[in-house]
């Protein structure tokens, strides 16, 4: 190979840039540790069970939206069918626990692996579709999945499955008297997905995925394996979405097809990331912190979730963000920082 770069004297500019980059990456970890520690402490200050429930759901959707963000935000493949993987996780965990006595921890893992494999199988044909066609295909596939589960008696069909009542325990993830352990599980889940995303951001996959999102043809010319990138992103994304499904099943302790696989979930995974900032580390949490409490309030005031009013509310919200801030709420802060940088450079 030509030795273009080794022929260069190692200038001080690259060396300095490298050091400041490493420091910046470490700083992000420290900030994250502080944020997650604060979130874990939060329920001790909130004794109200209703508010604790909102907190748990917010954290869970933040983690699920981050999982969606791995494929939709970083790699640019906008899935509106992630309810399928959420359902797989919920059903795998529930059936394995209720029917076979397998602890939910293992059930989640099984559901996650199953979802990753299914994502690869579906990605094989779907990733040959461009843009909107891909999104439409994901909606259709998830709806087919919902129909199949509806008619599958082994997993309870339309009736669903009830978790048995057990004493509170971290083994079975069942806590009837105190919701704080669920908060902690949700924080842990969010922290894990955040950390994995942080790792990916600094790795070749992260750069490849963003390159694929921005311009697949330019990416290919620079050695990026576009198809493999999409497949890998889909597998990781599906895996964590299923883990969230397993957690949700344990939390609500009763599942049926509509309550874990409806299209509403697919929207609820995508929207926080879109709202907060797509393809960013904190966008999904910021978006979920705005959207999920709003959802719960609208549920109490507008009554139930069956009338689709809340979906309309999300639609309006996302349209407002898309028009005013296409890069999400987080970009409000980034703009000011960029402006500052520009002042600094002559």
């Amino acid at each position: 190979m030509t030795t273009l770069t080794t022929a260069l004297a190692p200038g001080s500019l690259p060396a300095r840039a490298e050091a400041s980059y490493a420091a910046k990456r470490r700083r992000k970890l420290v900030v994250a540790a502080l944020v997650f520690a604060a979130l874990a402490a939060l329920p001790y200050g909130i004794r109200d069970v209703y508010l604790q429930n909102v907190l748990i759901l917010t954290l869970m959707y933040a983690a699920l939206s981050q999982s969606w963000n791995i494929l939709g935000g970083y790699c640019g493949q906008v899935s509106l069918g992630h309810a399928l993987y959420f359902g797989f996780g919920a059903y795998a965990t529930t059936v394995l626990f209720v029917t076979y006595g397998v602890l939910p921890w293992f059930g989640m893992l099984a559901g996650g692996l199953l979802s990753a494999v299914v994502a690869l199988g579906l990605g094989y044909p779907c990733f040959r579709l461009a843009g909107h066609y891909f999104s439409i295909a994901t909606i259709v596939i998830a709806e087919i999945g919902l129909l199949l589960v509806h008619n599958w008696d082994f997993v309870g069909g339309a009736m669903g499955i009830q978790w048995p009542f057990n004493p509170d325990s971290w083994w079975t993830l069942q806590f009837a008297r105190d919701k704080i352990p669920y908060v902690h599980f949700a924080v842990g889940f969010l922290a894990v997905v955040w950390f994995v995303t942080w790792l990916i951001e600094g790795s070749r996959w992260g750069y490849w995925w963003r390159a694929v999102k921005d311009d697949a043809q330019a990416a290919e010319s620079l050695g990026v394996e576009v198809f493999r990138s999409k497949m890998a992103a889909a597998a990781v994304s599906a895996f964590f979405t299923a883990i969230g499904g397993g957690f949700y099943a344990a939390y609500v302790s009763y599942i049926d097809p509509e309550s874990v696989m409806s299209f509403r979930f697919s929207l609820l995974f995508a929207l926080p990331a879109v709202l907060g900032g797509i393809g960013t580390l904190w966008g999904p949490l910021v978006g979920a912190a705005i959207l999920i409490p709003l959802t719960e309030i609208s549920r109490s005031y507008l009554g139930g979730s069956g009338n689709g009013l809340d979906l309309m509310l999300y639609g309006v919200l996302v349209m407002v963000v898309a028009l005013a801030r296409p890069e999400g709420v987080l970009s409000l802060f980034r703009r000011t920082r960029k402006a500052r940088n520009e002042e600094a450079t002559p």
Partner: protein
Amino acid sequence: MSSPVATDPLLRIDHVTLRFGGLVANADVSLEVPEGQILGLLGPNGAGKSTLFNLISGTYRPSEGRIIFRGQDITGLSAPERCRRGIARTFQVPRSFDSMNVVENVIVGGFARHASAAAARRVALETLDFAGLAHRAEAVAGELTPPEKRRLEVARALATGPRLLLLDEVLTGLTPSEAKAGVELIRKVAATGVTVIMVEHVMEVVMPLVDRAVVLHLGRVLAEGHPTEVVRHEGVITAYLGERHRAA
């Protein structure tokens, strides 16, 4: 690394044809590019120059013919595989990754050589330094000025560690002083041993820079040779340079 026999060209395009439906974008093109040359690819708009770049870099596959790179038939290889083997390109309309900053754009190229992020980043920073863009490393790619965008295209391609670099109109639309700076960069790249094929319209720029020129017209090779011979070629004058040039 095994080097091919000294007489083997770095790149050989062997009777390549590409059709888009009824339109023949490249018709029976044959070319040889020896290692170390700067080759100018000339011709009017629509002649098939960018299409030929797409065929060499693997964006398109030829309808007929073969492409041989370093003695190996690469006609069936994917674009990323060709990149790893040492072919890099820029695009006529710059295609930066606009959600990334400048150095991140170049890191993507660096990963063609190194799987490790630290190594890819080091390559990217050094390449930016080489390309004169180090001071813009942290700028968002979408906010670069046009000449900076062109430089970024070149830097990103260079970071992949190419033996053959395809430059598609990287100097077009620049002011004379910007173009002069661009020419210096191309010379600097060539001096490191990288073979260059470049598309460029301004003859004042092409003539002193390239070792050899090839003129395409309607997808065919119309003329080929030393730039001073090519501009005197009767067919080239009528098809491309125009009567004005003959008079001058």
